[in-house]
């Protein structure tokens, strides 16, 4: 007699998150326990930056109390220990996204990671023109007549580096449009992408619309065109299981501070064969083999892209954050946050004068919602909510072209994380319902 265990029963064995668990989680986050304007803090701005659990704060403190030293140099005890924890942290991050160790490059944040890729690519053009470096750089070189393709929903971090790359190389920047429900027009994408397309860069999940983009379909279009595919994973890596090899993207970036870690640390993933041939972006110490008065030879990845003294304590703290997320289970976090996102949108849609951006209630979205309040500017909405202890983001959320496309200049955005309860969402909704009457609209 065989005992058959199906994946479905395995899944049932891990209970879904609920408010009781979230309340226990909240105990790990000291900042969440405070009163703001006399009210318990309801933090709904994790899409901008998340809060740190004690284990992360302690990991950083422990590094400074016990191991602080420069890495990859010095033969002394602390230098060895610091190097070990720094490189262990890299392995933790590599495992977290399904990458190999040498494919995992530290960056200050996603913005720096994207700038690194864009500058490495324009350097590739320079090197290829002068016959420097690997012969494969000729294929990566970008010039006049080539195309760089992004989408209308990009955060400025995944837009301006490509605008500037187009400026430096003479390439043309093109946009995959969105439909009115906030989904990418894949039919138009198929028309835009062609053999002149050298780069296709897009966000995994929109920081404004909450849309989760169809990565597989987009990667397939990119592959057909022979383009490099760059994924902005800022709003996905912290919130849902992510495997860069399964997604088959060439590059991916995300920021630590949006996933329970401190500011100043992020990750750039790049496929090994690309990182091995791409010229560096920043140059200096720690990334070279031989230096003469004329020129330098560079280390392979990841060190090739890590010039200067690194953000060691932040990397260690980011690994602690990843451990926290992994122990909680990102599939569980994702399901919980989807529930919170649906609760937000359903609630907002029932309030007169509110226009929610992106997918309607019932449609897939991550745990955030941006909205317009008819007759009340987002800044005033945010101020009103703050007076009730509710922290949200107001403005264009670093996505001006998207807001212009939607006919808006500024919106209010609530974004949840694993430490938000359904009560947080209800408190937020109750306050939003009072905004228009307060401002006499």
């Amino acid at each position, binding site marked *: 007699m065989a005992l058959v265990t199906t994946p479905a029963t395995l899944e049932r064995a891990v209970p879904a998150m609920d408010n009781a668990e979230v309340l226990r989680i909240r105990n790990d986050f000291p900042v969440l326990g405070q009163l703001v304007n006399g009210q318990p803090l309801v933090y709904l701005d994790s899409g901008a930056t998340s809060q740190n659990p004690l284990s992360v704060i302690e990991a950083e403190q422990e590094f400074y109390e016990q191991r602080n030293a420069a890495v990859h140099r010095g033969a002394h005890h602390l230098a060895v220990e610091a190097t070990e924890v720094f490189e262990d942290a890299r392995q933790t991050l590599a495992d977290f996204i399904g990458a190999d160790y040498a494919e995992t490059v530290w960056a200050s944040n996603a913005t720096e990671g994207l700038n690194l890729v864009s500058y490495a690519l324009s350097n590739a053009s320079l090197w290829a023109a002068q016959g420097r470096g690997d012969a494969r750089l000729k294929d990566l070189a970008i010039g006049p007549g080539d195309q760089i393709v992004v989408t209308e929903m990009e955060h400025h971090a995944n837009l301006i580096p490509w605008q500037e790359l187009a400026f430096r190389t003479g390439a043309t920047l093109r946009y995959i449009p969105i439909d009115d429900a906030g989904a990418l027009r894949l039919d138009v994408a198929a028309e835009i992408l062609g053999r002149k397309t050298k780069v296709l860069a897009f966000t995994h999940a929109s920081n404004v619309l909450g849309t989760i983009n169809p990565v597989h379909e987009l990667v397939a279009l990119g592959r057909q065109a022979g383009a490099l595919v760059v994924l902005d994973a800022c709003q996905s890596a912290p919130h849902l299981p992510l495997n860069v090899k399964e997604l088959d993207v060439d590059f991916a970036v995300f920021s630590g501070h949006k996933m329970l870690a401190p500011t100043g640390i992020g990750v750039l993933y790049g496929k090994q064969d690309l990182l091995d041939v791409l010229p560096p972006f920043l140059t200096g110490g720690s990334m070279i083999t031989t230096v003469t008065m004329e020129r330098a030879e560079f280390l392979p990845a990841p060190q090739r892209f890590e010039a200067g003294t690194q953000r060691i304590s932040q990397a260690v703290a980011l690994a602690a954050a990843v451990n926290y997320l992994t122990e909680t289970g990102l599939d569980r976090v994702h399901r919980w946050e989807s529930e919170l996102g649906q609760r937000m949108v359903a609630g907002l849609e029932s309030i007169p004068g509110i226009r929610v951006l992106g997918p309607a209630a019932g449609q897939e979205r991550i745990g955030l919602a941006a909205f317009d309040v008819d007759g*009340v500017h*987002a*800044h*005033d909405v945010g101020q009103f909510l703050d007076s009730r202890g509710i922290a949200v983001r107001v*403005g264009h959320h670093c996505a001006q072209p998207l807001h212009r496309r939607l006919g808006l*200049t*500024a919106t209010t955005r609530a974004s949840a994380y694993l430490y938000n309860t359904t009560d947080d969402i209800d408190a937020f909704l109750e306050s939003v319902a009072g905004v228009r009457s307060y401002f*006499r609209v």
Partner: protein
Amino acid sequence: MSLDQLYQQIILDHSKVRHGSGLSGLAAPAGASTGQSHQLNPVCGDEVTLRVAVESGKVAQISWDGAGCSISMASASVLSELAEGMTVDELHGVIGTFREVLRSRGKVHADPEILGDAAAFEGVARYAARVKCAMISWVAAEDALNQAA
């Protein structure tokens, strides 16, 4: 500090009435020298384009177009009402006083004798993120005055 001290009734009223609003269709008085300034707050997208017409050393007309939060719109409205008829020097003085109050983080009180309805913005000084909202039209007026001079 309560929200009502920030959003005083006078501010909510002005944000709707928008005194001086509407640049087009309003020609500057013949013979007046004019200056126009466009100011943008990139953080929230508040935008004001303000024009002043100066005649014989006095503000003959002030008008503006803009989009933004209630604080920025009310502030432009209050400024327009206050400024007309003032001499250029008086208006420069009032702008300086207003800026001093707004940048004081609540330490300098607004004198209604000098600032009129603009004294209602005293509470904004305690909200560092909102000071620019209140200042945007006043910065535009200062720039426009310098051009008209």
